[in-house]
């Protein structure tokens, strides 16, 4: 009987099974990696903005976060400064800089500046800045060293899993009250013990996995 296949067919057959299997598994892995990649997370991708605003520049001058983000301690939303806030200084400083033309234009016409959102949560997620700030989570824990960013970018994925990392073990991240707005704060070597102490101080109750209740974020 003549052979149907050449001897190389054996290797080919096994290879194709391996490739087929690999392709299925591989594509799933790639999909997962893609979600975690900057393409999916947009971490470290700076957005183009109407004004090339530099947090680094402003923070280095010693302006407190709360000067612009006024409602971070009271409201869910930290607040984006109004044009008036910009103009408080820029009516006198750099008042002819071409870079600031859109700001002056906005002030003149009353048309708002339209910034491109960098930290953007889905519509079904309800995040409240004020409670996090009140319970010892500093700006830089989530936003990174904004004070060193010439153009604002996301430091973290803001994925649910990322949120849970902290909600499962807040002691790893909490900091003393006076360090909340300290962008340079780094966890001390004894963070584990210090963190547990702070949990008590802040009355953060992790019993019954309370910090993992769905309705904390979804309602």
């Amino acid at each position, binding site marked *: 009987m003549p052979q*149907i*296949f050449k001897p190389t067919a054996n290797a080919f057959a096994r290879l194709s099974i391996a490739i087929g299997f690999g392709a299925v598994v591989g594509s799933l892995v790639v999909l997962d990696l893609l979600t975690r990649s900057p393409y999916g997370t947009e971490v470290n991708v700076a957005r183009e903005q109407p004004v090339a605003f530099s947090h680094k520049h402003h923070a280095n001058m010693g302006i407190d976060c709360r000067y612009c983000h006024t409602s971070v301690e009271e409201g869910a939303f930290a607040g984006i400064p109004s044009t008036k806030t910009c103009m408080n200084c820029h009516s006198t400083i750099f008042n002819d800089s071409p870079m600031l033309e859109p700001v002056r234009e906005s002030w003149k016409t009353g048309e708002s500046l339209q910034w491109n959102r960098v930290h953007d949560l889905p519509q079904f997620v309800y995040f409240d800045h004020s409670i996090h700030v009140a319970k010892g989570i500093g700006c830089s824990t989530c936003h990174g060293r904004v004070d060193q960013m010439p153009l604002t970018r996301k430091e973290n994925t803001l994925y649910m899993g990322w949120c849970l990392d902290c909600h499962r073990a807040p002691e790893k991240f909490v900091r003393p009250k006076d360090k909340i707005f300290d962008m340079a704060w780094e966890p001390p070597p004894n963070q584990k013990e210090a963190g547990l102490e702070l949990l008590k101080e802040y009355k953060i109750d992790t019993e019954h996995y309370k910090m993992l209740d769905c309705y904390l974020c979804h309602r």
Partner: protein
Amino acid sequence: MSETDSNPSLYAVIAEFSTPEAMLKAAEKVRDAGYTRVDALTPFPVHGIVEALGIPKSRMAGLVLTGAIVGCIFGFALQTWLTVYQYPHVISGRPYFSWPNYIPVIFETTVLFAGLTAFVGMLVRNNLPRPYHPIFSAPRVEDATTSKFVILIEAADPKFNLKETTEFLRKSGAEFVGEAPFEAADTERNRAPLLS
């Protein structure tokens, strides 16, 4: 039986029988004659051929059992880890570790793993898929998947001698004796075990 007798382009000699009984008788003779690199090709599993040819027993059952145990542990561990440690939810007031609820999934993973092990194990141990095999070059061997029963003795058998072996098989009652050559392009003769 000398080295010079072995033809490097010959894979095996085949002997064809039309009943399993005839083949079995011949197989016993082949075994008794001391041939070890032997095999039978049959259109359905013939009871006794393994013993008749002196082929070692397979260990598939143990493999499948291992698969089952792994599946069982996997099912239990997966559920326990997810519901007790990874993200404990309060569900209907039940404890995090509500093991009675795990039973169905554990059973299914056990069966799934065992079944996959059985199937994949069978293919791997049988060295399948193997669309090319030198035996397919043998004359009339295509009938072995339908109606004929074939015994083959490889040329690589230490006792193999083309003439003698052919003669031996003919005497054992074979209706037809043929030769299965290696093909010119065959690169496998030195690699894969052709009998498994």
